[in-house]
């Protein structure tokens, strides 16, 4: 029977072979003949500046899974069933419903739980503040995303949670049609009302950097790094811990109107204030994965 190490080694070899094959395909193609690419989804968890085309509509299923706490078994996911449209050449609007799953067993401070639930709704407004031209490689989009949840993201308990994600999405075209760098700056305050009547205020603050290489006209691979800080107040005054997550990203355009994006982040460094352990698994997870499919119409 293959050991865990052998299985991982085989997977790494498969991934390397895939990348080698893709890079060979890239050399055979001429990037100057490629059409321009929408940058919004090519950086994994990091969001690019793209806002779509005026009049364009899109339906997406965007699932984020989180795995691993300090002990026991922890797996949770949140899926956005999302409708996006671009009413003008500078604004994009998105809204949709949230579904969540929780499989928790033997994790300290969390109740055991196995559930699937409708968990809330969200909306997002994106405004393109700086647009890329052939003379300016930088594009910047400002976004706000209010979200209402009926299920707590981490524990899966019934709550009323109100979150306001504000984010700056920037990207740079480093090599025409080929190499892109993405940057996000995030501030995400939220308030949670528990069934016991408690009110919890918290906030996340952080940023990311990503690099994505278009290895074929319809395939982009890359990597990203996130640094996130957690506070027990919306005003960023009660710091409780931080974490660094890194991982690979993949974007594939199947047809002109259909694409997918995937990403995997692993926590490589973290700290919990007042707890001398490595990693921050109280406020963040050991691993997270993103898988998104989109259909434009």
């Amino acid at each position: 029977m293959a050991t865990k190490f052998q299985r991982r080694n085989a997977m790494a070899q498969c991934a390397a072979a895939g990348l080698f094959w893709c890079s060979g395909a890239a050399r055979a193609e001429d990037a100057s003949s490629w059409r321009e690419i929408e940058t919004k989804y090519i950086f994994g968890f990091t969001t690019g500046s793209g806002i779509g085309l005026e009049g364009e509509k899109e339906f997406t299923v965007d699932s984020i899974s989180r795995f691993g706490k300090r002990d026991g078994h922890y797996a949770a996911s949140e899926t956005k069933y999302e409708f996006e449209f671009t009413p003008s050449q500078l604004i994009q609007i998105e809204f949709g419903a949230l579904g969540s799953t929780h499989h928790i067993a033997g994790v300290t401070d969390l109740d055991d739980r196995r559930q699937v639930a409708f968990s809330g709704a969200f909306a997002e407004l994106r405004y393109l503040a700086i647009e890329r031209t052939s003379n300016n490689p930088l594009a910047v989009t400002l976004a706000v995303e209010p979200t209402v949840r009926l299920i707590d993201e981490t524990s899966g308990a019934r709550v009323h949670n109100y979150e306001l994600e504000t984010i700056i999405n920037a990207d740079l075209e480093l090599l025409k049609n080929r190499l892109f760098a993405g940057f996000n700056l995030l501030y995400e305050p939220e308030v949670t009302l528990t069934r016991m009547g408690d009110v919890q205020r918290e906030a996340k603050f952080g940023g990311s950097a990503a690099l994505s290489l278009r290895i074929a006209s319809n395939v982009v691979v890359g990597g990203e790094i996130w640094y996130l800080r957690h506070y027990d107040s919306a005003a960023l005054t009660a710091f409780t811990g931080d974490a660094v997550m890194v991982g690979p990203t993949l974007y594939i355009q199947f047809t002109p109107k259909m694409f997918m994006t995937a990403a995997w982040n692993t926590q490589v460094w973290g700290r919990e204030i007042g707890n001398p352990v490595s990693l921050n698994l109280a406020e963040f997870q050991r691993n997270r994965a993103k898988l998104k499919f989109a259909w434009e119409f």
Partner: protein
Amino acid sequence: MSIMTRKLTLAALCAMAMLASPSQAQQAAEIQVTYSNGQFQPSEVRAPADKPITLRVRNADAKAMEFESKSLRVEKAVAANSEGVINVRALKPGRYEFYDDFNEKARGALVVQ
């Protein structure tokens, strides 16, 4: 809803409308492109910078085409033997590529100076 809340809502809606629509105060520069035999003619057109543009795309072919541009951030399906009108915001100087989404080989560019 209080008067103050109504005023704030109205102000927010006005601000969004201003952000959302390309400037209508200026006269738009009008540009004509013909799509024929699966190609744009001319394949390169020019327009002045910082001025809204009205792009008229006449499809002379017997099948539909979709005018699309990521950098102009517009798309418009144009039926066979008909014309599509696309309003573009005022643009900064640069080269903006466009293509027919149904035909990989049909390419063109708008050069803004």
